[in-house]
């Protein structure tokens, strides 16, 4: 017999990754009573993520809309990080020293030249560096690095610290984080209701589906509203250095294979990441780690001396066009904040603003909102 819950918040957020928690925090700060449901908050893709906020150095042909979203969210990060640290008393290791993208082989350098032309065409700021200039910035880079590209505006943050800070900030605002799974969307008398895995029914005016790669698993979604989100596996490792090894985020291409190293204030170095279409498989494999180490060692030979602290595989929520799904759906009261693929950490402040920000946005936000409208996949699944 399902119990009728005393919980009936204004906003119920399904999913406690960086997207769900940021959205809940924004909603709560707008004075809306908010509840989050997640069996293990912050333990999904956010737990694996490196936390690069690098729309410029990660830009790809055909993905200018994603670039525009990324730039809009990157601009929100300084304030987001400062407010979050103040509200939670937690530091999030937000750093703005820029991303250095380096090339290893001659073919990699040609690809970097191509990227520079593309960045120029898009009017994005960057500096072109020789191999020696790269090594003056980052002396631990291998002498064989041929050249690089510095995106000074790109930044990074520690997603695990952001999650901890968001949970603390939510706690201070009295937002409840229910550590259970949402099983099914059920018709409610007023607003929308969700049945949790223990049978409890929670009714809310607005429900935000922010369950990452699992967003398609919620039962009871009307046909056509199921988000076409698939898991994209990423293996990533965390090393620890007794002395600072790198001052920038370093991304490189080694014989066509991309790898990145993200240094943290506490000596941690994050090394990532594979991209695999393996369903809900989260096994860490020998081959996955080997590829990361193989490429990282070419770029920064010293990495092999570091202590290995953590290896993990996470599941990014990928959509067919790599853009997130943010906003209202055809079902009144149901909102989506999912499908952020590789950009969940970067896009968290923007996502929260698009869903629960002040209505008085700048002109640009209308275009951003329509680029990630959940409606665009109507009839896709």
């Amino acid at each position, binding site marked *: 017999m399902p119990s009728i819950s005393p919980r009936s918040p204004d906003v119920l957020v399904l999913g406690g990754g960086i997207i769900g928690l940021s959205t809940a925090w924004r909603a709560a700060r707008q004075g809306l009573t908010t509840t989050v449901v997640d069996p293990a908050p912050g333990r999904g893709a956010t737990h694996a993520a490196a936390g690069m906020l690098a729309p410029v150095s990660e830009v*790809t*042909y*055909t*993905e200018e809309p994603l670039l525009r979203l990324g730039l809009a969210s990157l601009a929100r990060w300084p304030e987001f990080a400062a407010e979050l640290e103040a509200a939670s008393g937690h530091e999030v290791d937000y750093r703005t020293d820029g991303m250095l993208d380096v090339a290893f082989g001659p073919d990699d350098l040609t690809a970097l030249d191509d990227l520079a032309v*593309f960045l120029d065409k898009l009017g994005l700021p960057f500096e072109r560096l020789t191999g020696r200039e790269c090594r003056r910035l980052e002396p631990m880079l291998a002498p064989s690095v041929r050249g690089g590209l510095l995106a000074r505006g790109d930044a990074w943050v520690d997603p695990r610290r952001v999650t901890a800070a968001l949970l603390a900030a939510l706690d201070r605002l009295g937002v409840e984080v229910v550590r259970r799974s949402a099983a099914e969307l059920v018709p409610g008398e007023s607003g929308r209701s969700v049945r949790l895995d223990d049978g409890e029914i929670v009714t809310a005016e607005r429900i935000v589906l922010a369950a990452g790669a699992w967003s*398609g698993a919620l039962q009871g979604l009307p046909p056509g509203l199921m988000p*076409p*989100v*698939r*898991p994209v596996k990423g293996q990533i490792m965390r090393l620890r250095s007794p002395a600072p090894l790198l001052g920038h985020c370093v991304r490189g291409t080694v*014989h*066509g294979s991309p790898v990145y190293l993200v240094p943290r204030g506490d000596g941690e170095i994050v090394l990532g990441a594979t991209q*695999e*279409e*393996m*369903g*809900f*498989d989260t096994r860490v494999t020998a081959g996955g780690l080997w590829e990361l180490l193989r490429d990282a060692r070419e770029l920064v030979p010293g990495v092999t001396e570091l202590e290995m602290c953590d290896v993990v595989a996470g599941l990014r929520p*990928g959509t*067919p*066009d*790599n853009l997130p799904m943010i906003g209202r759906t055809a079902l009144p009261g149901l909102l989506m904040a999912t499908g952020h693929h590789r950009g969940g950490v970067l896009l968290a402040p923007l996502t929260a603003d698009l869903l629960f920000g002040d209505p008085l946005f700048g002109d640009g936000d209308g275009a951003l909102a329509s680029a990630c409208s959940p409606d665009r996949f109507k009839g896709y699944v």
Partner: protein
Amino acid sequence: MDELVIAGEKFSSRLIMGTGGAPSLEVLDQALVASGTELTTVAMRRLDPGAPGSVLDVLRRRDIKVLPNTAGCYTAGEAVLTARLAREALGTPWVKLEVIADERTLLPDPIETFDAAERLVADGFVVLPYIGDDPALARRLEQAGCAAVMPLGAPIGSGLGIRNPHNIELIVEAASVPVILDAGIGTASDAALAMELGCDAVLLATAVTRAQRPEVMASAMRGAVEAGRLARLAGRIPKRRYAEASSPMSK
């Protein structure tokens, strides 16, 4: 255009696509549609065929036949195992056999490839082996029962075009199974040249998926393959050292 027939199966498109390197599934989908392909190869080692929302769903939705491949295998043993898993998962005995010799060049290992081909043919597979541009090996693989041979134009992803057109012609001359030019295509003229040399089809991926505008390049490749095929069927004029007036004044 005349039909391509591989192992008794007919295709009206002579452009076979690969899926690697596309920035997103949507971009891939648009490119596949623009290419007009009816057969597309998918790397089974980097994919769980049971996972929903993958590239296989895109192919199913577009009614494109899936050609599983064994990319990433370094031994005949791995390749045979991968082919069997693919057959089980996808229900097709077709396999593009790819056994790589080293990761820098990604050139095919002829000995492992031949070994795997023999075993897969004996096991009832329709085997399409990826090989170097070696006429002798192509002939031996045909004798071993392969349904087609797939010589490279240049290393995978290099975009260097057809480095040894003469060898491709020799393979075409001797073959009685389809010859599919696989790997090395950089732009449309490369694909047209492959067809003019007498190849029965062209397989490409990177040239489209990593182009600045993949959908547009896919259309270009479709046109190039058709143009090259028609030129081959039409029969080109011999090359001459000096001019010959196209409208002679007198006989």
